[in-house]
């Protein structure tokens, strides 16, 4: 709303003590407010310079001096301490570099207030540090920033003062140092979070999945591992280490040549398409709910039963009663907060959407469930519920493959952890020997930016 895309129903916005009317992003920009959205609004096919100077280029029909353009753009980047060759195309930059470009773009239009929406959600550890350095530089130049994030440790580290929102309500503003992480998560969830990473011990059964020398051209190299019934196997890796490729490949979701063998309960299976994988008892919770996990404009019921239409129907026709019963039961079992099973999933919160994706896997009677970054972009409370769900699956003897870039999460929840770096499994940690710091360092050390 502050950037002018949405209009307030009531209330006023004051800038430097003056009430302003922000009716469009352009009006907001003239007031010195710029928003950098989670999905960056850069144009990948244009050069860095053109992107940074975009607003200046798009006003009027003046002749543009290419030389001047490049000079101004590189000057801004240098001020940020990030000199790039501004003639490169933006699409070739890493997300971290693009973020810097987006900030430079805001600066050339004299932004005094920059709103950053989840800027770190796609960054790895080192990039985050670098990004924070840039933010501190901006602060010293007298630019104010609103840093929106659900990563608690980051806001605690970087922010001077902190406002907590829950379901659109303001729960108070705190000065730096006034809050601990535990207290903050309590505020967000609305009750004390006793255990951030709940975990249960349970007896592991026999081998359910064996992967041998799985390779995908350029992305994965000879990955091998074994997953047992009732085990949570964590796979950690930075962005681009090949986690998602591994998840998709096991599920038959990668149409290119895949080498290696996958054995389900000792039986060799082919990785040709998701339909076959589901029939064999695999379920995938993909990293991108919106694009890959859910049919967003359809109901909870529609989504939950989509993978299991075959056994839910008689001679092609879906048995309505059975379908409603199963959906209702899963909504109840997984604690999906909704009006009823006919609610459109688009209007659910991120955590509840994720539970719908998991429910879809459960109806399909899966023996192996692959979760790719299941807790990305959801709040602390919903995270704990997802972990509880993982534990429940574990007790039922399902093999759980948990892929994540969050080392703390894996150390808390997984029984065993594999470290994936640039498509290779470099080390395996049992639960006893897993130390957060050691794994974190291992993951980061190999990431060359």
């Amino acid at each position: 709303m502050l950037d002018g895309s949405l209009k307030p129903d009531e209330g006023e916005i004051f800038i430097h003590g003056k009430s302003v009317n922000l009716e469009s992003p352009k009006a907001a920009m003239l007031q010195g407010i710029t928003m950098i959205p989670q999905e960056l609004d850069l144009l990948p096919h244009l050069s860095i310079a053109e992107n940074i100077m975009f607003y200046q280029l798009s006003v009027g029909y003046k002749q543009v001096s290419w030389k001047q353009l490049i000079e101004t753009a590189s000057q801004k980047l240098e001020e940020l301490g990030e000199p790039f060759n501004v003639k490169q195309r933006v699409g070739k930059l890493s997300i971290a570099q693009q973020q810097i470009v987006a900030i430079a773009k805001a600066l050339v239009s004299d932004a005094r207030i920059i709103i950053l929406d989840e800027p770190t959600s796609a960054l790895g550890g080192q990039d985050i540090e670098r990004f924070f350095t840039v933010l501190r530089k901006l602060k010293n130049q007298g630019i104010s920033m609103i840093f929106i994030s659900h990563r608690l440790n980051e806001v605690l580290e970087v922010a001077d003062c902190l406002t907590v929102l829950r379901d659109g309500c303001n729960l108070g503003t705190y000065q730096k140092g006034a809050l601990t992480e535990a207290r903050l998560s309590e505020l967000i969830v609305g009750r004390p979070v006793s255990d951030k990473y709940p975990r249960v011990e349970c007896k592991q059964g026999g081998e359910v999945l064996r992967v041998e020398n799985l390779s995908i051209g350029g992305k994965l190299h000879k990955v091998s591992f074994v997953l047992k019934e009732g085990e949570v196997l964590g796979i950690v890796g930075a962005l681009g280490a090949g986690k998602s490729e591994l998840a998709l490949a096991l599920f038959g979701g990668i149409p290119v040549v895949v080498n290696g063998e996958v054995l389900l309960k000792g039986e060799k299976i082919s990785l040709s398409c998701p339909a076959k994988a589901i029939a064999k008892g695999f379920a995938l919770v993909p990293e991108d709910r919106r694009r890959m996990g859910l049919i967003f404009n359809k109901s909870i019921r529609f989504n939950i039963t989509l993978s299991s239409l075959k056994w839910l129907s008689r001679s092609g026709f879906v048995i309505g009663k059975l379908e409603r019963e199963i959906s209702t039961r899963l909504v109840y079992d997984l604690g999906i907060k909704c009006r009823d099973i006919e609610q459109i999933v688009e209007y659910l919160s991120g955590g509840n959407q994720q539970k719908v994706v998991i429910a879809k896997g459960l109806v399909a009677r899966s023996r192996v469930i692959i979760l790719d970054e299941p807790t990305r972009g959801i709040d602390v409370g919903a995270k704990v519920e997802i972990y509880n769900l993982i534990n429940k699956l574990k007790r039922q003897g399902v093999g759980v493959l948990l892929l994540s870039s969050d080392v703390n999460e894996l150390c808390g929840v997984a029984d065993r952890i594999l470290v994936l770096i640039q498509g290779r499994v470099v080390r395996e940690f049992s639960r006893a020997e897993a130390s957060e710091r050691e794994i974190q360092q291992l993951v980061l050390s190999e990431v060359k930016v």
Partner: protein
Amino acid sequence: MLHGNAVSKKIVKELLKSDYAVLIVLLLFIIIATFIVPSFFSLRNMINLLVRTSATGIAAIGMTFVILTGGIDLSIGGIVVLTAYIGAETLISDLGVNIWLTAIAMPVVGALMGAFNGFNIVSLGMPPFIATLIGMNLARGLAQFLYKGKTVFGLPEVYALFGCGTVGGVPIPILILIFVFILAFLVLQFNAFGRRVYAVGSNAKAAWLSGVNTQNVIFSAYVISGFLAGLTALIMSSRLTSVVGGLGLNLELDTIAAVVIGGTSLFGGEGGIFGSVIGALIIEMIGNVLTLGGVSPFFQMVAKGIVLWAAVALDMTRKGYTFRKFGSF
């Protein structure tokens, strides 16, 4: 507390949002038409109108399947003329095939042409617009090349049954439309295949990862569209008891208009056949009223354009797309 005015406003809003908004448009049309042309509301004209609508409506049901998957089928008119020639000229006149067998063969031939479209889209990866543009050119082109645009006369009288016959006073084309409608409705609402059609049209990638064989679904939609185009050809040629070179000309455009007026999203995944059939009725009404009113036939296309514009503008308004700032797209 809501005031009376606010309540009625809310009711109107909800009504506009519902799938039955198209019925309001239809009602408005009927009222206007009755005022302008009194003979419009006669029983004879009503039956004539409904018979005409059955041909367009059946084709529009096929088009709805395709559009629900996020595609488009430009070849419907071409398929109609080619199957009509194949049925009437080759099978009946040249080879002397039994009428009933021909009636079954025509939809099957249409389905084969639809399968060609589906193959090009699914296996060769062509965009639906291009693939069916090819289908349209090939079908209508072949019809012109093979049959030299001649008019086929002298079909056996029995052949007129499908277009002009009645059962218990109800014209057979209307009965065929009702039958096709019920079947298609059941499939889309209650069948696993129908579910998959909506899933593929809404988000093909997520559907595929949920185990839906997206290629099969898309292929089938074009086969269904072709099959129903063949059935339309049977009704149209039977009603005229002849086949002319211009049969089914622009039918694909009329059916697309019908589907859109009926509220089905051109992006796929939303909508249904009820709206499409009503849309077909509205499209046919425009021609009917203007003809009765003695308006130049050249104006009919303009009128269709205006109605289509109004329907889409209404659709965009009720979905809240109208007059948005560019940035919020």
